[in-house]
């Protein structure tokens, strides 16, 4: 087993276990912390996929900015525990159907993918250098995807104004 495989299984296991912890925790503060762990594991997977730019933006934007926003709201609202502490399996019928549907979804995805043959990653050093180059990504964002980039900036402006207006006290 080479280093790449060991890394994949370690990071994958950490990501899945941390995500399960996120939806299993009663305390939202612990959920946020576990989600940061999951994002760190995903950043490791991006490194293994020769995408260091995505790994670093994952850490900076997700773990650094979005999760801090969540932490602020959790601390601001001071709502530490969920109101009803009914175990999920014993919950109302709708929740049971929801759990069943998500297990079905996982089974369906795994079944569908296992019917495909295994597709291996190419190992051409020129291609790998091409996709892990930040300058190539910047070139693609600012030339090929320039329109999407500009629309994104409008989206951010709108969401910024929207967040301020929605959370404002006393209309």
């Amino acid at each position, binding site marked *: 087993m080479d280093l790449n495989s060991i890394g*994949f299984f370690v990071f994958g296991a950490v990501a899945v276990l941390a*995500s399960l912890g996120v939806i299993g925790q009663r305390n939202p503060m612990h959920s946020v912390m576990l989600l940061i762990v999951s*994002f760190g594991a995903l950043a490791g997977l991006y490194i*293994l996929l020769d995408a260091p730019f995505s790994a670093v933006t994952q850490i900076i934007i997700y773990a650094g900015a979005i999760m801090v926003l969540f932490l602020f709201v959790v601390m601001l609202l001071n709502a530490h525990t969920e*109101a009803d502490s009914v175990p999920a399996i014993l919950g109302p019928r709708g929740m049971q159907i*929801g759990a069943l549907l998500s*297990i079905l979804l996982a089974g369906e995805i795994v079944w569908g993918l296992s019917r495909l043959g295994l*597709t291996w*990653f190419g190992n051409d050093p020129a291609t790998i250098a091409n996709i892990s180059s930040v300058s190539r990504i910047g070139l693609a964002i600012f030339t090929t995807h320039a329109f999407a980039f500009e629309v994104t900036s409008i989206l*951010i402006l709108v969401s910024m104004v929207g967040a301020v207006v929605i959370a404002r006290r006393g209309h």
Partner: protein
Amino acid sequence: MISLNHYLVLSGVLFAIGTAGVFLRRNLITILLSIEIMLNAVNLTFVAVGRYLGTVDGQVITFFVMTVAAAEAAVGLALVIALFRHRETLSPDAFTLLKW
């Protein structure tokens, strides 16, 4: 050796965990966190397929998805704060005014 399928199965499992969180949790903040898990599962698919096809487009889309996730988190959390001010609770069962 690790193939593309390994990454696709992993991201499928993460996506299913996210949907389970949305279905099972009765806390608005945890539901938003589950949506973030789903967005990240999709990001992993984009990066893995980009690596397989040998293009940077997967990483470019990942960048845009992260931006949309940031916008979604900002607006979603503002809504959570506004709702919490009205009812002093985070349970989605308390907000059923629009429910038929």
